[in-house]
C-alpha cells in the first residue's frame, strides 16, 4: 500500500519504529501531490523542494533522537494566513503577495519542535473572507470530488489538499465556519477548537474574537494527534486559556455509551434539504445504537447568528486590516502625490472586493451614532446565543446538526450574490459566536458529493466531540474513500 494512503498516526508509528524514513513519507506524498495539485490548485506556495531537503535532514536527525515526537517527519500543509518565518505568507491577497514574515506563529513553533515537514502554504479566500476560495486574489481551488465545484472556504486549499490525500494533515482557521464548511464539502474531518484553546499568535487576524486555528485530516485520530501538539495556553495570546489539555488520542477511545445528543429544532426545519437531513439523522441513529440518547433541544437565538456575525466580524476586520497601509510592508501603490492618496490607492488596489465590502460594513457599524444600534446590539445578541448553548449543554453532551445546508456548490454559482454565500455558513457561525468547539465529519453523500455532520461540544471539551466522531468513524469508515484515485 502506498504510504500516501496512510494516516498520520500510522505513519508516525512507522517512523517511530524506524520501519520507514521521513524522506520516504515525504517522497510518497510529493508524488501524489504532483498528480492532483495541477487539477485542484490547493497551494499558493508549493514547498516541494523545501520539504525534500527538510526530510533529508530529519532522516539524519532521527538517528540521534532518544524520543521521537509524534509529528516527526509528518508532512503538513499550512493555510496561507498563518505566519511562517522566511516563507511567504500571502493571505491570498495582492496586499501580501510578496510578504515574507520574520517570525513563526505559535502553532508553527510547536510543529517545528515536533520535526514536522511543511509541504506548502494553502489557498484561501482573501484574508479568510469567503466560503469558496473564489475570493482568493490568485486562483480558485477545486473540489477533489468534482473539479467544477468549490472546495468550500475560506480554508479551501487546506481542505482540498487533505481530501486529495496529497498530505495527511493541514491547518486552517475558522472564523464563521472556515474549517468545518470546507471539511464538509471535501469529505474530511475539520475541527474548530474552543476559542482560546489554540493560540492565535501568528494567525493573521480577520475577526479577533471569533478566529481559531484548527486541523484538517482524513481521520479523527489524526485530528486528535495534532491537537495534542497545538492546543494549550500561550503567553503571547492573552485570549488563550490555561485549561488543561487532555491526551486526545486516549480520550477518543473512551466509550460513548450514556452520552446525550441534542438536535436543535432550529437547525432541522422543513426548509432543510431532505437528503441532507436524512443523511445526518441516519448518522445520529447509528450513534443511538452505540448507546447514546437523542433529544430535541432549542437554540432560540441561533437564527440571529448570521446577522450577528456579519456585524461583529466586519467590525473587527475593519480595524484589524487597517495595518495594511503601504507604509511598512506589503503592497504599496506606484504613483501618489500625498499620504492620503498613497493610503487610498494602496488599499483600493491591494484589497479585493469582498475584503473592501467587509471593511466598509465594519467601518459603518462602528461609526459614532451607529455603534449602539449595530455593534453593541450584536454583542448583546452574542451573549444570548452563548447562553442558549450553556442552557442546551445543561441537558446534553453534544449537539449534532448538518455542517452546511447543502453540498459543495459550483464555481461561480454564488460568487455574484454575497448574501447567498453568507448563508452557507448558517449552521457553523453559531459555534464561533458562542466560542464552543465543533467538528465536521463526513456522514454520507448526496449526488456523489460529501455531506458533513457537525458535532458541537461544551467549551474546552474537544475530547468529547472527538470521541463521538471517532465512534462514528468506526461505523462509517469514511476515510477509506479517496477522490481522484
Amino acid at each position, binding site marked *: 500500500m502506498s504510504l500516501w494512503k496512510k494516516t498520520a498516526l500510522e505513519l508516525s508509528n512507522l517512523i517511530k519504529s524506524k520501519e520507514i524514513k521521513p524522506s520516504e513519507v515525504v517522497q510518497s506524498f510529493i508524488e501524489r501531490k504532483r498528480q492532483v495539485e495541477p487539477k485542484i490548485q490547493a497551494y499558493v506556495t508549493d514547498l516541494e523542494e523545501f520539504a525534500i531537503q527538510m526530510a533529508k535532514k530529519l532522516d539524519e536527525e532521527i538517528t540521534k533522537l532518544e524520543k521521537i515526537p509524534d509529528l516527526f517527519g509528518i508532512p503538513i500543509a499550512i493555510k496561507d*494566513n*498563518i*505566519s511562517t518565518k522566511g516563507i511567504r*505568507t500571502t*493571505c491570498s491577497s495582492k496586499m*501580501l503577495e510578496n*510578504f515574507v*514574515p*520574520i*517570525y513563526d*506563529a505559535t502553532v508553527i513553533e510547536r510543529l517545528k519542535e515536533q520535526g514536522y515537514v511543511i509541504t506548502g502554504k494553502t489557498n484561501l479566500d482573501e484574508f479568510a473572507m469567503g466560503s469558496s476560495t473564489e475570493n482568493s486574489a490568485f486562483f480558485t481551488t477545486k473540489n477533489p470530488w468534482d473539479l467544477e465545484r468549490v472546495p468550500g472556504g475560506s480554508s479551501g486549499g487546506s481542505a482540498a489538499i487533505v481530501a486529495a490525500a496529497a498530505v495527511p494533515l493541514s491547518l486552517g482557521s475558522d472564523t464563521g465556519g472556515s474549517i468545518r464548511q470546507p471539511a464538509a464539502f471535501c469529505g474530511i474531518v475539520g475541527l474548530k477548537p474552543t476559542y482560546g484553546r489554540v493560540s*492565535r*499568535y*501568528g*494567525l*493573521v*487576524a480577520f*475577526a*479577533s*474574537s471569533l478566529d481559531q486555528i484548527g486541523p484538517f485530516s482524513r481521520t479523527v485520530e489524526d485530528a486528535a494527534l495534532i491537537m495534542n501538539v497545538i492546543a494549550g495556553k500561550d*503567553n*503571547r*495570546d*492573552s*485570549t488563550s486559556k490555561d485549561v488543561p489539555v487532555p491526551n486526545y488520542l486516549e480520550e477518543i477511545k473512551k466509550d460513548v455509551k450514556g452520552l446525550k445528543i441534542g438536535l436543535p429544532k432550529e437547525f432541522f426545519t422543513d426548509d432543510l434539504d431532505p437528503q441532507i437531513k436524512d443523511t445526518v439523522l441516519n448518522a445520529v441513529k447509528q450513534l443511538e445504537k452505540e448507546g447514546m440518547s437523542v433529544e430535541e433541544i432549542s437554540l432560540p437565538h441561533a437564527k440571529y447568528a448570521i446577522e450577528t456575525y456579519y456585524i461583529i466580524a466586519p*467590525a*473587527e476586520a*475593519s*480595524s484589524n*486590516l*487597517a*495595518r*495594511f*497601509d503601504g*507604509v*511598512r*510592508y506589503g503592497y504599496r501603490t506606484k504613483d501618489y502625490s500625498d*499620504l492620503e492618496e498613497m*493610503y487610498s490607492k494602496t488599499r483600493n488596489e491591494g484589497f479585493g472586493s469582498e475584503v473592501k465590502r467587509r471593511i466598509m460594513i465594519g*467601518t459603518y457599524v*462602528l*461609526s*459614532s451614532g451607529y*455603534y449602539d444600534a449595530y*455593534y453593541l446590539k450584536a454583542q448583546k445578541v452574542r451573549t444570548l446565543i452563548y447562553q442558549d448553548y450553556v442552557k442546551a449543554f445543561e441537558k446534553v453532551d453534544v449537539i449534532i446538526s448538518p455542517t452546511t445546508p447543502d453540498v459543495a456548490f459550483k464555481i461561480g454559482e454564488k460568487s455574484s450574490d454575497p448574501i447567498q454565500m453568507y448563508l452557507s455558513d448558517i449552521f457553523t457561525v453559531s459555534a464561533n459566536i458562542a466560542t464552543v468547539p465543533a467538528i465536521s465529519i463526513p456522514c454520507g453523500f448526496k449526488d456523489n458529493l460529501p455531506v458533513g455532520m457537525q458535532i458541537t461540544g461544551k467549551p474546552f471539551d474537544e475530547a468529547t466531540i472527538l470521541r463521538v466522531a471517532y465512534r462514528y468513524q468506526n461505523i462509517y469508515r469514511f476515510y477509506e474513500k479517496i477522490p481522484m484515485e
Partner: protein
Amino acid sequence: MESMVMLEKEFDVVIGLETHVQMNTNTKMFCGCKVEFGAPPNTNVCPVCLAHPGTLPVINKKAVEYAVKAALALNCKIHNLSIMARKNYFYPDLPKGYQISQYDKPLATDGYVEIKVGDSFKKIRIHRLHIEEDAGKTIHEGSYSYVDLNRAGTPLMEIVTEPDISSPEEARKYLEKLRNIMRYIGVSEADMEKGQLRCDVNISLKPKGSDKLGTKVELKNINSFRFIVKAIEYEIERQSKLLKKGEKIIQETRLFDPESGKTYTMRTKEEAHDYRYFPDPDLLPIVLKDQDIENIKKSLPELPDQKYHRYVETLNLPPYDAEVLTSDKNLAIYFEQVISIFPQNPKIVSNWILNELLGKLNDKGIDIENSPITPQSFAELISLIVDGTISGKIAKEVFDIAFETGKSPKQIVEEKGLKQISNEDEIRNIVKSVLEKHPAEVEKYKSGNEKILGFLVGQVMKETKGKANPQLVNKILREELA
C-alpha cells in the same frame, strides 16, 4: 500684559488639561521592547510593535501597576474592571492603524490635585486617568518623511482634569504639581523636553459670573511649561477680542507655534475624526481586586502634600520653606537626609538649603542630587554653626570652599584655622586694643550714638578675620564701653 488684566476682569477663563505622561517601565506597553530615549531610529522594535500581520498585544503588568499608583496619588477612584479599546485612525507612525487606549471604561476616575493659589489651596478635579500606548514619531526632512517606531507602544497615562483651572498660572501650577507627584511615586521622569509629559489645553471664556460655558478650543503641541502659559495667554486674548467684537468662537483644534507665540487652526469640528472606538478583542479586561489596589496603595511613598503638611506641622517650618523643599522629590530627600543626621534644628537646615545651597546649585546648573556638598557634609556644616565652632559668616566661607572642593567642613575649618574664637579673655584683649585705636568713635558712643557699636564690632571682627563669636564680641564691647 495690561490688556490681559483688563480682559480677565470681563471674562472668566475656563481651562481643562489633558496630559499624557510616559511611564518609565523597562519595556513597552504590549511587547518586550525596551523603552529608551534617544536610541538610533527603529532599533527598539519587534514584530508586535511593528504591527506585523498576526501579532498580538500582551499587556505590561508593570504599566498597569504604575498607572494605579499614579491614580491613587491623584486621589482617584480605581475601577475593579476596566477595558482596553481601539482608537482607529490612519497615520504613518501608528503601525496598527489603531491605538490601544481606554474609552468608556477607564482605569480610574474622580480624583483631584491640590495647588496653592495665594495662601490657600485649590482643588483641581481629575476627571479620569487611563492607560494607552504611544505612537511612533514622524520626522519630515525636505520632501521626505521618515518614521521612527522606537516610541511606538511606550506606555502612557492620559490624565484629564475637569474644567477647574482659571488662569495660565494655575495651569502651570497644576502641571508642576502633576510632574512632582509622578516623580515622587517614581512612575515617570515627566520631563516635558523629552516628551515624557505632554499637554493639550481645552480653553473657553464666558462673561464674568455667567454659568453658561463658552465654546471651547483645544490647543495642541505645547512642549514646555513656559509655552503652556504663553499659549493660554495668547488664546485668552484672541478669544476675548473676538467675543468683545460680538463674534463667535469656533470649536476647533489649534496648534501653538513657539516661534510666533500664536496659535493657529489645525482642524475644525467638522474635520474631526470618528475614531470608531470598540473594546480590543485581543485583550482581556483589566481586573483589579480591592486587595491588589490596597497593596499598591501601601507601596506608595509619602506624597508632596503629605510631606508639606508634615514639614509645617511637625517640623515647624514656615509654609514657604515647606513648599519649596517639597516641590522637588530629590530636594526633599536631601533635606531629610540632612535632618536625619542633624535633627536638632530643621529650620536652620532649611534656611541654609534655601538661601545658600539652592542659589549656588542654580548658578552652576547642577541638580540637587549631584550637589558637591553631600547631605553628610551639609549636616556637619550646620552642626559647626549651631555648636558655635564657626560663626555664620565663616560658615558661608566654609560652604563656598566645600562647594568648590567637596572637602568636609570640619576639615576646612581645621586646615584654614577658621575656628570661632569664644575665649572671653582673648576677645576682651582684642576689644580693648580696638577701643584704644578708635577714641573718637568711643566718644561718639558714649554721647549717645549707639549706632557706632556696629562699626566697633566690625573692627573686632576684622582683627580676628571674622572668627570672633559675634555674640561675645557684642557683650564684651558693651561691658568695656559702660
